[in-house]
């Protein structure tokens, strides 16, 4: 069954003459972990972080959504080396355990000079380091620093240091907005501007390639066993064959998906991103929802754009 986004009322809000539709993004609750990856220099910290957060665009196909939260200066990391904060989002704590075991074990531990620390402080923990330590084959050792236990695993370049457990907290996954543009260059340019602006918002990631997704989904399919399929209502090439949600003149749509540690950060990212995306060639900003069936977190565009800077 096709899903068309529900619009709440016919109110008109414009930013830079771009219409912001009166609709909402429907997000869902997830669990998040924040890891601090350090290395001898920023290059290797970033390589470890990028590798660990690769192939992590969607919990549906990848088991998690992950991305880089930000680059940390040596003063901001536990060991005083350059670091990168990464965020992982999963549906359950069991998923988080599997994801971190695999990704930290295969992508961070293997990366030269790396170390990995907990970047959150909550009581809910997933014990990754205390399992990965067995790689040390009996030569691992631990150090307790201010109630934080660090495992030292001997490896060929010295030691891999990993915190015993990583904290988890409730978070938001699937915040989003759509950029409805008159052309592909215009939509791409607007999406890039939005992503660049949103990069500065802490506590969020945009898990898709370059922060942008062109293959948005709807729930369900005509094919049995396919629980998600292309978002037909926003595909311009079939607009006359389906119940299209596209205004006249829109020929290309890009979606930006946002995962955040809390509602406030997702709202702020949406606000910053939408404002940056309202450029020449963009005809409207919308959002994907499922009529409230998929998630309990609703981000109303008009409400969000009414906060912060004044809506033009």
């Amino acid at each position, binding site marked *: 069954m096709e899903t068309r986004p529900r619009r709440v009322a016919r109110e008109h809000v414009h930013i830079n003459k771009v219409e912001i539709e009166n609709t909402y993004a429907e997000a869902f609750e997830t669990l998040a972990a924040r890891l601090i990856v350090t290395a001898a220099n920023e290059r290797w910290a970033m390589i470890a972080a990028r590798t660990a957060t690769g192939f992590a665009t969607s919990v549906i196909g990848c088991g998690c959504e992950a991305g880089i939260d930000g680059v940390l200066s040596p003063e901001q990391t*536990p060991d005083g*080396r350059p670091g990168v904060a990464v965020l992982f989002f999963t549906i359950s704590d069991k998923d988080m355990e599997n994801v971190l075991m695999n990704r930290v074990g295969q992508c961070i531990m293997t990366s030269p000079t790396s170390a990995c620390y907990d970047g959150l402080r909550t009581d809910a923990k997933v014990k990754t380091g205390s399992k990965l330590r067995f790689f040390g084959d009996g030569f691992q*050792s631990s150090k307790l620093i201010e109630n934080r236990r660090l495992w030292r695993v001997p490896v060929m370049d010295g030691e891999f240091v990993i915190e015993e457990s990583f904290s988890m907290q409730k978070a938001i996954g699937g915040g989003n907005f759509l950029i409805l543009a008159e052309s592909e260059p215009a939509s791409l340019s607007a999406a890039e501007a939005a992503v660049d602006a949103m990069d500065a918002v802490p506590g969020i990631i945009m898990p898709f390639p370059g922060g942008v997704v062109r293959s948005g989904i709807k729930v369900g399919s005509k094919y049995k066993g396919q629980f998600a399929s292309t978002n037909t209502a926003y595909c311009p090439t079939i607009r006359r064959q389906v119940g299209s949600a596209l205004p006249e003149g829109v020929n290309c749509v890009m979606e930006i998906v946002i995962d955040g540690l809390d509602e406030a950060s997702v709202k702020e990212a949406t606000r910053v991103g939408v404002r940056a995306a309202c450029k020449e060639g963009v005809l409207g900003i919308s959002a994907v929802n499922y009529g409230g069936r998929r998630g309990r977190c609703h981000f109303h565009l008009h409400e969000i754009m009414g906060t912060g800077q004044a809506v033009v």
Partner: protein
Amino acid sequence: MGCVSCAGLMKVFADERDVVTLRLREPDTVPIEAGSICPDLFVSRTLAEIKALPAFRGRRKVELGDLFEIQGDRSDSVIVEGDLRHVQNIGMRMSHGRVLVRGSVGLHLGAYMRGGEIIVEGNASDWAGAQMQGGVIRIMGNAGHRVGAAYPDEKRGANRGTIVVEGNAGREAGARARRVLIVVQGDVGDSAGANMIAGSIIVLGRLGKRAGVGNKRGTIVALGETPEILPTYRYECTMRPVFLRCYLRRLLDWGLPVPKAAVDGEFRRYSGDTTSLGKGEILIYAKS
């Protein structure tokens, strides 16, 4: 861990209205066992009840009020003043609160303590922090022998907690210790970390002889003068230990004079003691 840099503690004591103050009435050479000078015991007691707490002067049982002039009540912040060199067991078994000792103090300071903070503005005698299980002790002068060590009838010594000695420490610091962090700004005596089970001893001055004898899994870090290494230790490699960066950065935060170059510096790693489990280590700062 609380604020080991004293800033928080001093701030608390700046407002002495909420502090229990004990001043030793007269200097005494007879040992005084004052284990009842403990924030846990003061926090819910009136002045009269505090004065009535038991103590021993030699083998005679007395009350705290007989030995000390006491002011204040119902507080877990305690100031002890006077010539306390023969006063023992201050802060013993404390689990929270703060104790400031204005002067030098006797044996067993903070023994068995589980939490809270103790600051000694002078020297501390032997067995400071023996068997401690948490909290912070900062001794601004010298510490005696067996700081953070195990008592003779105990298999394991200090388990968690932090002891910072700004002066020198005596023999067998951290003997049979487990998980504790002991930092000595000056020199440390012989047999530091003897039979250490785990934990860390960081020495900014000179490390004495026979360091780490019988060490199982403990870490001894020598940042000062290069010590003699027991022949039962084996040189492994020269490394930049990442975990040590975390420790040294904390020490710098606490205001200790750690050479900044050491944070990023290379250390020679010796493993031992091979007469024991052999998984301990001595890290010696390899100055350029």
